C-alpha cells in the first residue's frame, strides 16, 4: 500500500527527471561541480545554483540563465559528483527545455553557432568549416572575427573550398525531419 | 445466506514482532476495522507454511492476509526475506491455478504502523467483499462434505455453535 500517491502537476523538475533519468533531489549542494567547472568564471549563476533553482521550483530563473549555454559539456562535474548526479546531462536537459519553452536565450551567439553547425550537417551530412564559419558570421554579424587564423589555415590547405559531401543526403534530411521538435 | 448479508471470513497470519504488535497498536489507538478478520500469530513470517493457506481455504476462508516485518527489519534478520521468495512462488502458483489475486494478499506492517494495519486489513476485506464468496473453493469443500459425510475430521467436534449447545 504505497503512501506516495500524492498527485501533483507535472513540473519542469519532472521533465528533467524524464530526460535525464535522475532526480534533482539527489544533489546535496556541495558545490564540487562549480569548484571544478572550467568555465565557472564566465557563468552568471554557479552550476550548483542552477540545480538549486530547479530544486526550489524557480524554473524561470534557471531556464533563463546563461550557465547551461556556457557549459562546454566536458563532464568534469559529472565525473566528480559525490552523489553521481550527471550534471552535464542535466545541463543538456535544461537547454533543451529552454528551447522548448521558448525562453529568451541570453547567449544567442552560442545558440547560433549550434544552429549553424547543425545546418551544415543537414545540408552536407558532414560539417563544412568554411560554410560553418560563414554562416555563423552571417548569423551573428561578427564579420571580422577569426580573420587572423582563417587565411593561414586556408593557405595550408586545412580549409576546403568545396564541401565534402556524402551521398545519401536524403537519409540525413529524414533524420532532421523526424527528430524536429514541434 | 443472501449475498447482501454475506460477510467474508478473513484470516491473517502475522508475525509476533511486527504485525501482531502493529495490530495491538491499532487497538491502543482505538482505530476501527471490520470484525471479519481473525489473526493467527506465529513467531516470524518466515515460519508461515503455504499449506496453512490451503488449510484456511479448506476451512472456508474467503480471503487471507500474510504479514510480517518490513525487509531489513525482521526480528530474526532474514526470516521475511525467505518468506518473500516463498510467497512469490506460491502466489504465482495459486493465481495460475485460478485463485484470484485478491484472495491471498501480503503486506509488511511494522510495530509502529497501527494505521497501516487497519488500512491493509480494510483493503483485504473490501477486495474480498467485491469478489464475493470463494465459490471455487466452496465447491471443493461442499463436495468433500457430501461425498464423505462420515469422514472423521480432527475438528468436527469444534463446529458446535453456541446456539446448538444451548
Amino acid at each position, binding site marked *: 500500500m504505497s503512501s506516495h500517491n500524492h498527485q501533483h502537476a507535472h513540473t519542469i523538475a519532472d521533465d528533467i527527471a524524464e530526460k535525464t533519468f535522475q532526480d534533482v533531489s539527489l544533489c*546535496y549542494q556541495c558545490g564540487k561541480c562549480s569548484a571544478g567547472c572550467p568555465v565557472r568564471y564566465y557563468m552568471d549563476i554557479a552550476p550548483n*545554483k542552477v540545480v538549486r533553482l530547479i530544486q526550489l521550483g524557480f524554473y524561470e530563473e534557471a531556464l533563463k540563465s546563461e550557465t547551461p549555454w556556457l557549459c562546454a559539456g566536458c563532464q568534469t562535474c559529472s565525473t566528480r*559528483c559525490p552523489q553521481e548526479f550527471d550534471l552535464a546531462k542535466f545541463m543538456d536537459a535544461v537547454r533543451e527545455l529552454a528551447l522548448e519553452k521558448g525562453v529568451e536565450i541570453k547567449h544567442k551567439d552560442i545558440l547560433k553557432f549550434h544552429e549553424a553547425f547543425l545546418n551544415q550537417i543537414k545540408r552536407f551530412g558532414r560539417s563544412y568549416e568554411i560554410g560553418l564559419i560563414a554562416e555563423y558570421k552571417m548569423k551573428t554579424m561578427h564579420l571580422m572575427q577569426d580573420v587572423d587564423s582563417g587565411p593561414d589555415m586556408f593557405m595550408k590547405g586545412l580549409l576546403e573550398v568545396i564541401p565534402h559531401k556524402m551521398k545519401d543526403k536524403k537519409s540525413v534530411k529524414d533524420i532532421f525531419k523526424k527528430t524536429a521538435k514541434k | 445466506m443472501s449475498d447482501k448479508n454475506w460477510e467474508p471470513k478473513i484470516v491473517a497470519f502475522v508475525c509476533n514482532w511486527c504485525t501482531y504488535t502493529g495490530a495491538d497498536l491499532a487497538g491502543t489507538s482505538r482505530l476501527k476495522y471490520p470484525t471479519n478478520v481473525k489473526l493467527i500469530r506465529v513467531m*516470524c513470517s518466515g515460519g508461515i507454511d503455504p499449506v496453512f493457506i490451503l488449510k*484456511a481455504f479448506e476451512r472456508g476462508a474467503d480471503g487471507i492476509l500474510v504479514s510480517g516485518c518490513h525487509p531489513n527489519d525482521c526480528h530474526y534478520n532474514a526470516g521475511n526475506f525467505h518468506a518473500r521468495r516463498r510467497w512469490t512462488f506460491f502466489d504465482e502458483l495459486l493465481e495460475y491455478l485460478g485463485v484470484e489475486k485478491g484472495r491471498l494478499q501480503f503486506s509488511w506492517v511494522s510495530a509502529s504502523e497501527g494505521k497501516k494495519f487497519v488500512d491493509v486489513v480494510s483493503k483485504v476485506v473490501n477486495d474480498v467483499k467485491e469478489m464475493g464468496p470463494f465459490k471455487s473453493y466452496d465447491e471443493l469443500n461442499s463436495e468433500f462434505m457430501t461425498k464423505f459425510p462420515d469422514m472423521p475430521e480432527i475438528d468436527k467436534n469444534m463446529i458446535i455453535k453456541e446456539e446448538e449447545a444451548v
Partner: protein
Amino acid sequence: MKIGVFICHCGENIGRTVDCPRVSKACQWLPGVEVSLDYKYMCSDPGQNMIKDEIRKKKLDAIVVGSCSPHMHEKTFRKAAVDAGINPFLVEIANLREHCSWVHDDIDAATDKAIDLVRMAVEKVKRNQPLTTIEVPVTKRTLVIGGGIAGIQAALDVANAGYEVVLVEKEPSIGGHMSQLSETFPTLDCSQCILTPRMVEVYQHPKIKLMTYSEVEKVEGFIGNFTVTIRKKARHIDESKCTGCGLCTTKCPVKKKAFNSFEENLAYRPAVYVPFPQAVPNIPVIDETVCTYYKTGKCQMCVKVCGREAISFDQQDTLVTEEIGAIIVATGYKLYNIEKKPEGSMIKGYGEYGYGKYKDVVDGLQFERIASASGPTSGEFKRPSDGKEPKKIVFIQCVGSRDDSKGFSYCSKICCMYTAKHAMLYKHKVHDGEAYVFYMDIRSGGKMYEEFVRRAIEEDGVKYIRGRVSKITEKNGKYIVKGEDTLASMPIEIDADMVVLATAMIAQTEASELAQTIGIPYDKYGFYNEAHPKLRPIESTTGGVFLAGACQSPKDIPESVAMASAAAAKAMVLFGSDKLEREPVVAKVNELFCAGCFLCKKVCPYGAVEVKEMKDRNGVVYKEIAYVNEGLCQGCGTCTASCPSKSIELAGFNNEEVFAQIAAL
C-alpha cells in the same frame, strides 16, 4: 483434558463492546472446557486468585485467558498458572482487547468475534505441550577482541567486577588509534597522557590475560559456552625473558626498509621494533619481511646485544584455546585511503586529489602524528616533502564520507570535530599561518562540541568555506586547491603549502572475515550490526556477543568508552547467574524422517542447524541429518516452514497448534 476459560472485562475496556458474560457462557460449551468465567479485572490479585482457585478446585490441565494482548499480561497469567501447578506453556491468551473490543463498535459482531478468538485459543491450548525452560551453564570469562580504548575500557570494567578477561590485540601493543592522537577534542588534553595509565592497568591486572600480536581464529559454541581458538603470532622474542631494554631495536642495522605504521608511514622503523615508546607490553617484534637474518641467514646483531638471550628466530605461531562465556567485539576502524582502488571495488579513491601522489596531502591520522609532541617532527609543524613549516594549510572534510561515487554514503561523524581541532592546534603553534576548512555541513552535536568549533572560527580565525574541493594540483611546491564557496557562490582557489584530508572512518580490513568467524551480521560497509538500532544497540544478534566502539559505526572516544562500559555491563548481566534460562521456543528435528536436505540449515539466520551423523550399530554413518543447537536457536520457525517433509517443529508454535486454530475459524 480439562480447560478453564477466563474472560476479563478489563473494566469497561473489553466489556463495553464485548458482551463478556455471553462469551464466557458460550465458551462453557466448547468441548474440553471444564469451567468458563468472567471477571472485571482478571490481572488483579482477586482475578488471579480466581484462576488459581479454579485450577486447583477443578483440577484443570490448561487455561485460556481472554484479555488484553499477550504482550501485556501473558507473563502474569503464566505465573499464576505456575503457582497453581500448571506448566506455563499450557496458558493461552485470546486477545479480546487490542484485537477486538478496541477496534470494533458493533457489540454483537465483536462478541461473536470474541467467542471465535477464545475458541481458537482453546483449540490451540489443547495441543500445547508442556515445555520447560532451557538451562545452559555459563562460563564466566570474557573475550575482548581489540585493544583500543573501547577494548581496554571493556576489559577493565569486566575485570574490576571480578571476572576473568582475555584481551586479544592483533598489533604488538594495545592502545589502538587513540595512542596515535596528539590532543583530543573538545578539551585539548593530551591523548597519551590519559590513555597510558589505562594501558598499564590492563597489563598489570590480575584478572586480565593480555594476548597482543594475536588474532581470533575460530569461535565455536554459543552464548555462555564459547570455545575460542586464538593464534598467537610469532614475535621471535621470548616474552618471558625480554626486559624491554630496547637495545636490540637501537642496534638493528635495518634503517630505512620498513615504514613505521604507528607514525602513519611518516617515518621508518628497524626490523626489530617496539611500535611506540609507551607500548604495552614493552616487548619488541621482529618483522620477518625486512630482517636481514631471514633473508641472508646472517647479521644477528640483536642476538649479540641481547643480554637475556631473548631473541628466538625459530619461534612459531601457536594456537591457544580459551573457554569463554561472553565476547566483546571492539575491533575499531581504519581510515579511508585515497589511493586508486582496483577495478570492481566498492570504493574508488580520489584521482582529483592525486591518488596519494602528493606528499604534502596527508590524512587526519598523519596530521595527528605531525602535531604530536612524540611524533616524527616532535610536534613541530613541518610538511613531509621538504620539512618546511606550512604557512597556508587547507583542511578538506568528507573525503570518502558522504560520497556515493568514490567512498561511502554515511557520515563519519567525528571529522567535523577533529578538523576543527587540527586547525586549532595548527593556529596555536603557527601564529602567522592561515587555515582553511572546506566543509559541507558542520556536525557538532555533543557536549561542548559546537562551542569548540565556534572557538576555532571566532578565536583562532580558522576560515570555514562551505563547499567540496574539486581538484588539488601541484605547482612549484604549492598545492592549488580549487573549490567553490557555495554560500557566497564564488569560485575559490587557494595555493596551500599542505592539505589535510579528513578521510572517512571505515571498517577494518578484515572486519567481515572476523564477523563470519564469530557469526555476527555486518552491514554493507563492514560495520557490525546491533540487535536493535534503538533498544539493543550494544548486543549483536548473536547471543552473548556484544559490540563496543567504532566497529559498529563511526564513533568518538567518549562514545566508544560509554559503549564499552555498556558492553561490559551486558557481559556481567550474563554472569549474574550460574545457569542461563531461555524460552523453550526452539526448533527440534524429527530424526527418523529427516532426509538431510539441509534447507533448514540454509535458511537459519543463526547458524543453529548443524549436521548430525546417524550411525548404525556398527558405527557406520548411514545418513546425515539436521540437528538444532538449542543454545543458538532463537525460535523464528523459518526452518519449519521450509522443511518439505515437515520433519522439524517449533516448540510452542508447532504446526498442529496452528492447524487447530485454523480449524477453529
